[in-house]
């Protein structure tokens, strides 16, 4: 993105100032000093060719770059409208753009302190960064100078973009399913099934002990009710075996009518008998 804007900017400058006067640098110079201010290397820069050996910065060294922007014909100091330093790593393609402040007289001073590197410095490896200067002005033609190669201590690898994975083939998804559940051994199931007969034994034993009296169970008033209730249960068993939901609801709604009538008749008879008994 930044590169796109930047190049567009340069092109527009080139169109505007195609035939304008050109800019140049006067007495460009760099100085590398250690953290204790002792000078390690200090050389003037040539715009025509880069220094023979790349500039090398330690983890706490400071690079100072000074130059003055002047008009090529008049030799007068000029303040360009845009001044940028570009750090570019050819191998990884990482780059960083750093604006440089220029005084109205054209003098500029840039300081790169490796103890506190600016955010514009791209993620670095052991590869040298190509450092170039871009000058843009409304009245002068744009100019670009390859200043020098710079080797800085390697930084952390650049953070991966959050959507980086979306641009590659994803690993194939293998679904794992829960294994098929197994029935327990037949003998255990059979044992528990037999164990479920125990409550029936208890129930029948208790009932035979209690001997509940149902003297009127087969009387004409009550038998239909019991029969319809049994029919309901049979219908539900049938539902379990064969029927569908809609069918069972239909049959149940039909069966409900006689059941309700028979129930009303039977329970009225029982109630009458109870009240008659209590009144006696």
């Amino acid at each position, binding site marked *: 993105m930044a590169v796109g804007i930047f190049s567009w900017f340069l092109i527009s400058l080139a169109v505007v100032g195609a035939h304008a006067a050109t800019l140049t640098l006067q007495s460009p110079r760099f100085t590398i000093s250690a953290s204790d201010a002792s000078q390690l290397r200090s050389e003037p820069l040539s715009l025509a060719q880069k220094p023979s050996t790349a500039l090398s910065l330690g983890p706490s060294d400071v690079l100072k770059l000074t130059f003055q922007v002047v008009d090529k014909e008049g030799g007068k100091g000029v303040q360009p409208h845009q001044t940028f330093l570009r750090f570019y790593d050819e191998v990884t393609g990482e780059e960083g753009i750093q604006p440089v402040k220029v005084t109205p007289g054209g003098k500029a001073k840039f300081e790169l302190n490796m103890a506190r590197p600016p955010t514009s410095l791209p993620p670095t490896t052991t590869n040298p960064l190509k450092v170039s200067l871009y000058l843009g002005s409304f009245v002068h033609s744009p100019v670009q100078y390859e200043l020098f190669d710079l080797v800085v201590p390697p930084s952390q690898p650049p953070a991966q973009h959050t959507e980086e994975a979306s641009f590659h083939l994803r690993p194939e998804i293998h679904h794992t399913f829960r294994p098929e*559940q*197994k*029935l*327990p051994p037949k003998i*255990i*199931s059979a044992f*528990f099934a037999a*164990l*479920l007969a*125990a*409550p*029936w034994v*208890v*129930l029948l034993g*208790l*009932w035979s002990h*209690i*001997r*509940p*009296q149902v003297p009127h169970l087969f009387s004409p008033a009550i038998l239909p009710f019991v029969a319809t*209730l049994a029919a*309901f*249960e049979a219908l*539900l*068993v049938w*539902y*379990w075996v064969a029927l569908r*939901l809609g069918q*069972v609801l239909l049959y*149940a709604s039909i069966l409900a009518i006689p059941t309700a009538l028979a*129930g009303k008749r039977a*329970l*009225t008879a*029982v*109630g009458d008998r*109870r009240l008659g008994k209590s009144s006696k």
Partner: protein
Amino acid sequence: MAPTKTASQAKPRTASSQQSPVLTLWNAYNETTSTRLKTIDAFLVFLMLSGIIQFLYCILVTNFPFNAFLAGFSSCVGQFVLAASLRSQVNPANKNEFKEVSPERAFADFALGSIVLHFFVYNFLG
């Protein structure tokens, strides 16, 4: 529950005896509870035992046909609840609390509730 209620009514009669409280309670229950209520109580015990055995099978062995377990266990629990409410409504000792509910009405409720419960249980049975 209801058995304790009937037992507490009977307490003054057996309080003088030197039996253990549990035995006193049991005797009072046997003497004062009507046959109908005893029938329902036996049914309740049956449902409780069935439910316990099914639950034990579920936690000890497997719950594999889980729908079948749900059907069996919920039928026990639901039937227990219905039978217990039937018992409390037909209990003569609770007559004042259920003035407008005659025993016949209670049984009709029980029958209707049971049919609905069994319908859902068969749905789960699969």
